[in-house]
């Protein structure tokens, strides 16, 4: 099975091509550069280098967020439209899950996260069990302080993985001390190869069904809902 994996959900731009569970090519940059300009040229170049035509693809896997709303939409629009036109399945994988793959050989809790500003993070809690990644806590948009408080109560070792690790490192270490495991640089960068692998094991969706995993309402929508609630409360 020929798989194209695409991740533009955060700062990393990653494109990978797999034959079943084997990576045969990958392009990755970790730069603040425009994903919209660079994604298709990267796909085109990689497909050329591995001598694969678009119609030889069997499946497209895409990181569906959380992350930058715009970044997520660039990846999803590209993946779902391509899959639709080639009439092949498409799979969306949580961007947090892709990061959790870097903790494949860690036996306790894995906490991948992306900074969401104002003390907030997009995060979830994972654990590798019987060669499978399972969810311990659902993904959500939470205050990092609250996440750390909760983890502290558990008194378990936790592996933290995040491209934004520098922003929260101090707070993590202060809160969890030796229970916090924080690896070096490359482990915090999501890899499209892992994304492809994760997508291989997941059930495919139709292109129409695939939507971003924002983990947050649009601001206008959240405000509107709040207003409705207030109106209700005031009768």
């Amino acid at each position: 099975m020929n798989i194209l994996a695409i991740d533009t959900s955060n700062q990393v731009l990653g494109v990978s091509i797999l034959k079943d569970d084997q990576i045969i090519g990958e392009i990755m940059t970790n730069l603040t550069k425009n994903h919209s300009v660079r994604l298709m040229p990267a796909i085109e170049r990689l497909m050329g280098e591995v001598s694969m035509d678009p119609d030889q693809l069997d499946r497209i896997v895409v990181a569906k967020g959380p992350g930058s709303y715009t970044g997520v939409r660039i990846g999803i629009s590209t993946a779902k439209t391509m899959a639709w036109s080639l009439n092949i399945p498409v799979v969306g994988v949580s961007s947090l899950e892709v990061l959790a793959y870097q903790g494949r050989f860690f036996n306790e809790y894995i906490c991948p996260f992306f900074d969401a500003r104002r003390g907030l993070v997009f995060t979830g809690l994972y654990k590798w069990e019987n060669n499978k990644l399972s969810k311990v806590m659902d993904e959500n948009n939470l205050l990092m302080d609250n996440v750390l408080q909760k983890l502290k109560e558990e008194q378990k070792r936790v592996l933290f993985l995040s491209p934004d690790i520098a922003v929260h490192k101090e707070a993590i270490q202060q809160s969890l001390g030796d229970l916090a495991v924080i690896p070096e640089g490359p482990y915090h960068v999501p890899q499209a190869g892992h994304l492809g692998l994760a997508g291989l094991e997941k059930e495919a969706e139709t292109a129409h069904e695939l939507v971003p995993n924002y983990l947050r309402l649009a601001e206008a929508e959240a405000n509107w809902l709040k207003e409705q609630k207030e109106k209700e409360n005031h009768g």
Partner: protein
Amino acid sequence: MKKNTLMLGIETSCDETAVAIVRNGTEIITNVVASQIESHKRFGGVVPEIASRHHVEQITLVLEEAFKEAQVTWDEIDAISVTEGPGLVGALLVGVNAAKALAFAKQKPLVGVHHIAGHIYANRLEKEFEFPLLALIVSGGHTELVLMKEHGVYELIGETRDDAAGEAYDKVARMLGLPYPGGPHIDRLAAMGEETIDFPRAWLEDSYDFSFSGLKSAVINKIHNAKQRGETLKSEDIAASFQASVVEVLIEKTLRAAKEFNVKQVIVAGGVAANRGLRKELEVRFSETEIPLLIPNIKLCTDNAAMIAAAGTIAFEQGRRSGMDLNANASLLLK
């Protein structure tokens, strides 16, 4: 042999997800538009983030509907054109990236199209162009006069210095407590009112530019002052007086430019071209001249993808191509 170009068009610059297939730039095979107006109503205007979210949900559904309706296969499609700007950047990005994905997956040429070029070419779906021609584009985001001496070449001779005409409509509508989008409501009220208030006309002498912010402020002041004095103004009369000011400036400038450049056609495009007051007055004034006036039917005035495919066909036939690095450009200039 007669050339036969089948163009797929994609438009997502604002709050319509649209896909069309057009033959030779003149014949609509299919023109599917998924409007989000209902989703934005409760916010009193288009919310960019929400528009972008809808586009990404809709894009493949609209594509599929277009192909189903057209009974066309990918082999028959010659190229893909997409609005690259101007517009809401997040919204544009969905269309641009979808178009690039299709161009790569199906190995088809790609052509980026300027949204206003699209509005102009909507007219060619109804009648062949004769040059030089003058286009008046009026919509929520635009008020422009464009001179064309040949296909695919656009000369901007006038534009708004502040608000677009449609924007002024929406703001005045909000002042009058009318629901979004306000333009059609003002138009409806205006038809029932009298022009009792003498609102200003911004002539900006020696220029084909427009300005509507002074008019908008005058309307707001008038309503405020009346309220303070305890007087009530009839909404119908405010609407009629406001619309009279907008329409007069638009038409005078268009007429003046049409005569100066000796054009063979005047075409009107954009969402505000659906305004009945404007259409009627344009028809009256141009019937007094020798210059033919074209206003497309309402479905082609508002945003759609057939117009993008029509403009894209000309660009394609002139050899213009976009690369896989095509980007959305919120403030793209018309060239």
